[in-house]
């Protein structure tokens, strides 16, 4: 797969200019605005779904640019990459192509929280993404800047107040129509850049700011609530100016593990991987931060920045008197630069230089490009459906930082799902949701749309309630099969591979299960293993595999005739055996949540005429909030206290219970409820709902 890609890369790049040159048509199924991580996945996914897709971006050569850190994956984020790959997305394969330092984080803490991660070569990553996109059938790439969205009256058959019909490009009145539009504008929506005391409009240094028209359409025309967030990036350091004798080198894994389920190895040879270096801040760093505070207008503003990835200024101000880690990461095989992770800063460039020179190993360091801060608008994601469509606007989908997230992987995950649903909308297929019980992508989207964000959202493994089941190793079993059979975004090649893997694992587990011996007989077969069970108990191969020191290889060499053909899956089988019991335990809770998730509330219900005992205030809030499902959410972070009160009272669930009762009897759409419905039954349901919340 990889070698084939290498040979075809250049021809794709040639194709790019041709594609971009002239626009073949004025009518598309899906238009994706923005060519970052979300946009690239969205466009590719929509095209895979069979939709005629147009990707509009300011510059083709910045498609797939890593704007900030040159790395992919990590704890929680690695899960997302695996899931995107399982749904046939791009970033996993791109990571395998561009990676120059592979490691699995949390190796000692259990396979459910392993964090596959790689340092990337920026150049190679960009090339791969561009080649993929330009080589995707049904996908056209266009250079341009979107001036505004074309919006019209909604389709009365579907919920919503508006309907999107296409875009209008800047420079002239060039209009392109489409049934759905995916906005992935990243930090460009009313973005401003901060460095020291200077501020300029823009979303990334070196790129033109996006037009104000888009922001206007979203807020004024569509009435969407927006908020403001900030982020930042560190200065890039000239590699030759760093004294490597004073920093601690960190080695990559000896055997790189690919992200993609399709790859057995990565492009980079193990011995050609580069190193990362660790150093740390000193009291001098804190001094420079304090002395430059009055020159630093970004840090003085109280826009919410990421708690998880704070600037060096906020780190030393929040936790003074400590040494903070600084990682020096390679930017690429041929790059002369280093990326100092942990040193995102917005002070004036001369102060930035003073600061980094207070750090061991960087006393003579030179800055290639100074760090800067970005503030940008995001659309409050509670206004989105589980398909990432704006609830009030038919055909408009949002993905990435515009929804208040941070990180490439989070953006890519949303992009993929928004692309899938944009295509489904355009092709008149019903929307699809991913459950938080089956994937981290589901957790991500569910958190966004039901809790909203107050700070940039980043994925953690602790956000997933069913972590034991949602492991990086089984993302293909969880998503690839569904992706092909139900969603339609997975190629048959990948599907066949996933089916082969599933069948082999099942066969192997069945073979292990039938392998039953008494404890003394196992000891004869595996003399080095201490088996604690009493003599009379008989143990299966699966039981044995749960022993800490037993590997599948050991069993396979003891029983080569029935097990040796499965050694390809040794690691996965070991993990399956250990986690099986815990996954079974979670099944019941998973089923309960899925049931709640499936209880979709109609989006066009009239909360004002519902014959339930609700105050006007509550009705107004429900009308505005329009919960998507009957799911109980006691930890809703919507600041409005009243909403929290309602949430606590399980009003949503009550509403749902009522509706599910009703919808059994009435046509689903446009619920019209007679005033005299079985009032008693309704009241019982309501009571149960409330008490379920407390007693469960």
């Amino acid at each position, binding site marked *: 797969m990889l070698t084939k890609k290498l040979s075809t890369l250049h021809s794709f790049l040639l194709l790019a200019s041709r594609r971009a040159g002239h626009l073949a048509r004025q009518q598309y199924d899906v238009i994706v605005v923005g060519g970052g991580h979300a946009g690239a996945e969205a466009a590719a996914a929509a095209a895979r779904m069979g939709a005629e897709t147009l990707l509009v971006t300011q510059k083709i050569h910045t498609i797939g640019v890593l704007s900030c850190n040159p790395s992919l994956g990590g*704890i929680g984020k690695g899960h997302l990459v695996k899931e995107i790959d399982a749904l046939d997305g791009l970033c996993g394969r791109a990571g395998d192509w561009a990676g120059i330092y592979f490691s699995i984080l949390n190796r000692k*803490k259990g396979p459910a929280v392993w964090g596959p991660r790689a340092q990337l070569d920026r150049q190679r990553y960009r090339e791969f993404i561009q080649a993929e996109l330009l080589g995707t059938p049904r996908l056209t790439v266009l250079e341009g800047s979107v001036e505004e969205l074309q919006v019209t009256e909604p389709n009365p058959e579907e919920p919503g107040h508006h309907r999107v019909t296409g875009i209008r490009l800047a420079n002239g009145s060039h209009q392109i129509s489409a049934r759905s539009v995916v906005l992935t504008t990243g930090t460009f929506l009313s973005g401003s850049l901060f460095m020291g005391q200077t501020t300029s409009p823009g979303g990334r240094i070196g790129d033109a700011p996006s037009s104000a028209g888009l922001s206007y359409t979203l807020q004024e025309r569509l009435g969407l609530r927006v908020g403001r967030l900030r982020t930042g990036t560190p200065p890039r350091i000239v590699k030759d100016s760093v004294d490597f004798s004073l920093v601690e080198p960190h080695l990559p894994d000896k055997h790189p593990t690919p992200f993609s389920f399709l790859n057995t190895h990565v492009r980079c040879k193990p011995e050609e991987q580069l190193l990362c270096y660790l150093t740390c801040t000193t009291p001098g760093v804190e001094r420079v931060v304090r002395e430059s505070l009055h020159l630093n207008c970004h840090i003085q503003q109280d826009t919410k920045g990421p708690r998880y990835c704070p600037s060096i200024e906020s780190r030393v101000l929040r936790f003074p008197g400590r040494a903070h880690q600084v990682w020096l990461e390679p930017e690429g095989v041929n790059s002369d630069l280093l990326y100092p992770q942990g040193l995102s800063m917005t002070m004036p460039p001369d102060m930035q230089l003073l600061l980094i020179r207070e750090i061991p190993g960087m006393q003579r360091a030179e800055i290639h490009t100074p760090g800067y801060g970005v503030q940008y608008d995001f659309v409050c994601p509670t206004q989105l459906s589980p398909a990432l469509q704006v609830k009030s606007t038919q055909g408009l989908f949002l993905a990435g930082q515009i929804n208040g997230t941070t990180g490439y992987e989070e953006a890519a995950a949303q992009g993929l799902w928004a692309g899938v649903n944009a295509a489904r909308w355009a092709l008149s297929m019903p929307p699809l949701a991913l459950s938080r019980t089956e994937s981290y992508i589901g957790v991500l989207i569910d958190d966004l749309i039901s809790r909203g964000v107050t700070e940039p959202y980043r994925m953690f493994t602790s*956000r997933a309630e069913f972590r034991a089941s949602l492991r990086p190793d089984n993302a293909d079993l969880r998503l690839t099969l569904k992706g092909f059979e139900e969603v339609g975004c997975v190629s048959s090649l990948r599907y066949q591979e996933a089916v082969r893997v599933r069948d082999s694992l099942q066969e192997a587990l069945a073979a292990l299960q039938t392998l039953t011996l008494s404890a003394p007989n196992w000891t004869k077969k595996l003399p080095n293993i201490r088996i604690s069970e009493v003599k009379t108990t008989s143990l299966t191969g699966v039981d044995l595999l749960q022993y800490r020191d037993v590997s599948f290889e050991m069993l396979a060499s003891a029983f080569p005739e029935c097990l040796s053909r499965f050694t390809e899956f040794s690691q996965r089988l070991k993990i399956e055996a250990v*986690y099986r019991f815990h996954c079974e335990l979670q099944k019941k809770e998973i089923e309960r949540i899925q049931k709640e998730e499936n209880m979709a509330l109609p989006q066009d219900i009239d909360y004002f005429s519902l014959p339930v*005992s609700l105050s006007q205030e509550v009705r107004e809030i429900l009308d505005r909030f329009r919960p998507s499902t009957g799911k109980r959410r006691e930890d809703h972070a919507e600041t409005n206290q009243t909403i929290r009160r309602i949430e606590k009272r399980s009003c949503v669930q009550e509403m749902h219970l009522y509706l599910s009762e009703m919808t059994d009897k009435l046509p689903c759409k446009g619920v019209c409820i007679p005033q005299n419905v079985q009032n008693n039954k309704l009241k019982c349901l309501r*009571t*149960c709902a409330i008490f379920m919340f*407390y*007693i469960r």
Partner: protein
Amino acid sequence: MLPSVHRGILKAAVHTLRTRGAPLNRVMSICDGVPVGLADAETIFALSSGHGRCGVAVVRVSGPASATALRSMAGLTRSLPPPRTALLRSITEPQSKEVLDRGLVLWFPAPHSFTGEDSVEFHIHGGPAVITAVLQALGSMPGMRPAEAGEFTRRAFQAEKLGLTEVEGLGDLIHAETEAQRRQALRQMSGDLGRLYQDWSHKLKRCLAHVEAFIDFSEDELIEDGVLTQVDKSVCDLQADIERHLKDERRGERLRSGVQVVIAGATNAGKSSLLNTICQRPAAIVSPIAGTTRDVVETALDIGGFPVLLTDTAGLRDSPDLVEREGVRRARERVEQADLTLVVVDCAHLPSDAQEAAAFLLAHLKSILPETAFPPTRCLLVLNKTDLLHGDQRQKLDWELRRVCGLPPVCLISCHTNEGLQDFVTVLHNSVKTLCGDPLSGAPTLTQARHRAHLQQCVTALAQYQQYRDTDLALAAEGVRLALTSLGRITGRVGPEEILDIIFKDFCIGK
């Protein structure tokens, strides 16, 4: 400290002790088919004091229309009375303005009321006609309806005026029949038990947050290595705490639902006589014929403030009679479930030598009590029919048996003459008190079987943490998470966002 027997510490109490449902059923029964007050719009009213003729009756009103009701029924056209101050007014029918009664009115504006809503209380004369008239007047106003059972409490609960354990405590308080029950319920209602569980839940949350921080951040960050050692210690302590709480030998639950005291012994030993003597009424049929009692006879009592469920059983013997055999089976079953067994022995059957008597009694106990009950700590030996002993024989026997080791406390009584009865009741009272514990001292006790089940799950889940601590931290964390969920079923659930908040409060995190 024990008042005289005849002054009613042995109040033969009503049977309702038995009929009260299991704790969970109680809470659930509030919602069984009853409309609930999500009802922001509805105002409810009810007679809150007991039914029947009485000096003063209290009618309570809660909801948005309370103020209107107060205005129109107490003739307060201009202003409402000052909050929470009693005011003597004529209470009138709102339309006809006919005076119904003269009484006190109290105004409790939201949120400072029991339900958290606007509330009004009418303290009126307790005659049935007056009460009916006032309730009818209230019902005639728009937006008012009679409250369903428990609805005021439910509204208080929904307004977060009370937590779940407090609600359960309140329910118990209303149903409390004995002094000790009242104390325990009041203590639970004031939130003692809730606070204990909250405290554990808080500790668990921190444990989970720290494990999660170690999983999600330690690769990038300087999370101190000591973090997990701290968690190990906390988990260990919590496990011990909860286990200790669980090992209260069901004291709280027992106090809540009554101590099971079972009278057992050979036929014709005087078991039914003992029951009747304790209840001071002929609850069981007594006759000189062996095998008179064939079924189980139960009666509820208040002994020095503690609820006791006293059970008389059939005399234990091999009988060819099918009915009596069933009675004996039931008797043995009751003895097995008993919190305290009163083994009744006929003095006349005792050997005269003290040593032999002791051996006889021990063998007798073995034939009655199940094997698990040895050594017999939850047992009293009642030697009946002392009136049949001669002269100083009684004293000698008493004195000598006290010196024998391995026998449970011995009481010599005569159900015929009431000799020794007072001493016996003192011993019984002390035993019951030990079984229930003092509801006011020490840590709050477990009162509900539902809590016990969740706490047991919690302990099991914590064991999972220990099991996987060194091999798979994700599964270890899963254990803490499960423990927290179990505890959350008592105190309220904990979401992932809350855990992250603790992580960011406790650690210096940043990528």
